[in-house]
């Protein structure tokens, strides 16, 4: 009897590891191995022709120096654009999530459906659609020119504004949905309790709802900022040579110039900066405290 029981507990101790094997294998094959080869590439030198380049591993740290010195502007620009887009998405997404969570009543599901609806059209097509909307002969520009906000020679497309707008648009649902989820979870009796304790709506929001929704804000800003910082579609279709982001640079290095080592070094630098940024951000916002 005792033997059976012991075997039972041993089995249940092994089971979690067995269950995680497929996922670990997946990660090993499709994440760890590529990352390793990318790291090797970033420290290699290129030889051979443009069509058939060959990499030789040689501790080539100068690739990183090149990446920094040549593309510093694009790095900065990427983080500024992604930061602006994240801020804009937060300012648009939070109130909308609030309305959907607390005020929408029976329209809640319809509104959530509308938020998700754009996902049924591919990212690329939606971004190209913005190109048409914001184009010099589009209705937006002509309307703004008629009103006098834009001068006759001004345009929106190919500006930093268009790129940030595109990023904001594309990543808004990633901001909104986590915020919505964290707002939805808030027990409305807490708001009643705040009201009972002499706090009118505004103060109840600042002291109760906002702090309790911070985990959603945290998740939303990360889900928006990280992909936005590495994005290359928006800068490519809505921007110009003056608005190139680091994602575009990496894409060009890999697929057009085919300088794999520099492209890999750029990727690693981008990853490192984002990782450090996220850690600092998590430290500042202190998400553990909130849950």
């Amino acid at each position: 009897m005792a033997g059976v029981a012991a075997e039972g507990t041993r089995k249940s101790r092994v089971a979690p590891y067995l269950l995680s094997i497929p996922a670990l294998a997946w990660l090993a094959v499709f994440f760890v191995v590529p990352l390793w080869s990318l790291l090797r590439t970033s420290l290699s030198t290129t030889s051979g022709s443009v069509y058939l380049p060959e990499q030789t591993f040689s501790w080539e740290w100068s690739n990183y120096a090149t990446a920094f010195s040549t593309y510093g502007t694009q790095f900065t620009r990427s983080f500024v654009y992604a930061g602006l887009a994240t801020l804009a998405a937060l300012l648009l997404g939070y109130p909308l999530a609030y309305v959907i969570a607390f005020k929408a009543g029976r329209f809640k599901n319809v509104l959530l459906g509308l938020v998700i609806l754009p996902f049924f059209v591919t990212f690329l097509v939606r971004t190209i659609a913005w190109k048409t909307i914001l184009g010099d002969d589009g209705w937006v520009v002509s309307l703004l020119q008629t009103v006098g906000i834009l001068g006759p020679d001004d345009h929106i497309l190919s500006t930093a504004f268009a790129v940030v707008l595109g990023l904001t648009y594309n990543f808004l649902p990633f901001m909104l949905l986590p915020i919505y989820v964290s707002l939805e979870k808030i027990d409305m009796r807490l708001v009643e309790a705040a009201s009972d304790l002499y706090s009118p709506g505004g103060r109840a929001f600042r002291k109760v709802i906002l702090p309790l929704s911070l985990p959603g804000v945290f998740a939303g800003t990360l889900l928006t900022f990280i992909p936005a910082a590495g994005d290359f579609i928006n800068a490519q279709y809505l921007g110009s040579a003056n608005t190139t982001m680091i994602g575009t640079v990496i894409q060009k290095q890999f697929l057009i110039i085919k300088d794999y080592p520099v492209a890999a070094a750029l990727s690693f630098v981008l990853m490192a900066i984002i990782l450090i940024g996220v850690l600092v951000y998590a430290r500042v916002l202190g998400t553990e405290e909130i849950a």
Partner: protein
Amino acid sequence: MRDTDVTEPAGTVARQTSPADGKDVVIDIDHVTKRFADYVAVSDADFQIHQGEFFSLLGPSGCGKTTTLRMIAGFEQPSEGAIRLEGVDVSKVPPYRRNVNTVFQHYALFPHMTVWDNVAFGPRSQKVPKHEIAGRVDELLEVVRLSDFANRKPVQLSGGQQQRVALARALVNYPSALLLDEPLGALDLKLRQAMQLELKRIQREVGITFVYVTHDQEEALTMSDRIAVMNAGHVEQIAPPVEIYGRPETVFVAGFIGQANLCRVKVLCCNRGTADYELCGQTLHVAFDSDEFRDGSDGTLMVRPERVRVHTSPPADDTGVQLTITSLVFQGPILRVAMRTADDDEIVAHVGTETEIPDVRPGDTVWVTWESDAATLLPPGPAPAPGDEAEEIPGETATSDPARGHDVEET
């Protein structure tokens, strides 16, 4: 001034001893009706609650007791009538401008704040000076005996401790009345009984008016100065516990509070405070003070089981009602004797087991009597449905009165 209320309970005791004499009305519910669309939640409630009183709103779920409390707190507005707090009409005043505080059913503690910050929430909202907030919060944490837990988060506390934080968070504002919405509902039986005494102690200590919503009649009887029994939106009776138990005014109150034998009877003749009625061919007397009866009208007779005496032979004065025993259940302190009339009405007697237990068994014929002051003649009305008392409270089956739990099961 309020400070002294807390630190010097002696001053409030005098006020508390005469809570119902008409002075010092804190809450005035003036002909209040509340409708939600077509549904009438509270119908013409009209009563006053006095300074220092422990006032309970008691009734089954859906009787309107919580709606009444929410109207006092300001979360709902009366459809008709007015609510006055210390003489001021607050019917349209939002909750955050009313000087009453609520202990919510599931506490509604702020999960992201420590115990200390939870308690300090109200005074901070009211912009009380910092040093005064600290003093008040520390004092209240002491009153509820949680000083050592000030830096914990609510999730790190037990149910009973959370309950006491909720209490401190409300009392720290020195409200003119504390509103409690089934505050012990989520606690298990043992803890609930301990908290009942604790609540009563705190109320005596701070001398603040408590308005207590509960569906648990025993809880209401244990703690209240006065109880308002509500049913289907109506206030059925407002009286101190002894009177509610001994002199119920309606069949509902009689059936809801404790156990009661309720028999339909025919009133034969009535004059000057006494009436003759017929029960199973026996003519008996009862005192009554209602003008609802005239000769020949129907009534309901209420007798508490512990007042019913069981005899194995007809009593000499020929006042015994002849019955057949249907079951005998030994319950420790009492023997529960269930009997049936010729009309198939059930009458239950509780015989104290310290006295001599009559030597009877099911099927035997017995005679029961009761003192005439043990019986109450009530106008006919609906009795509470069995299980009315049982609400969404986990562990409710473990009712503190085993006799009652048993009874509900059987009927």
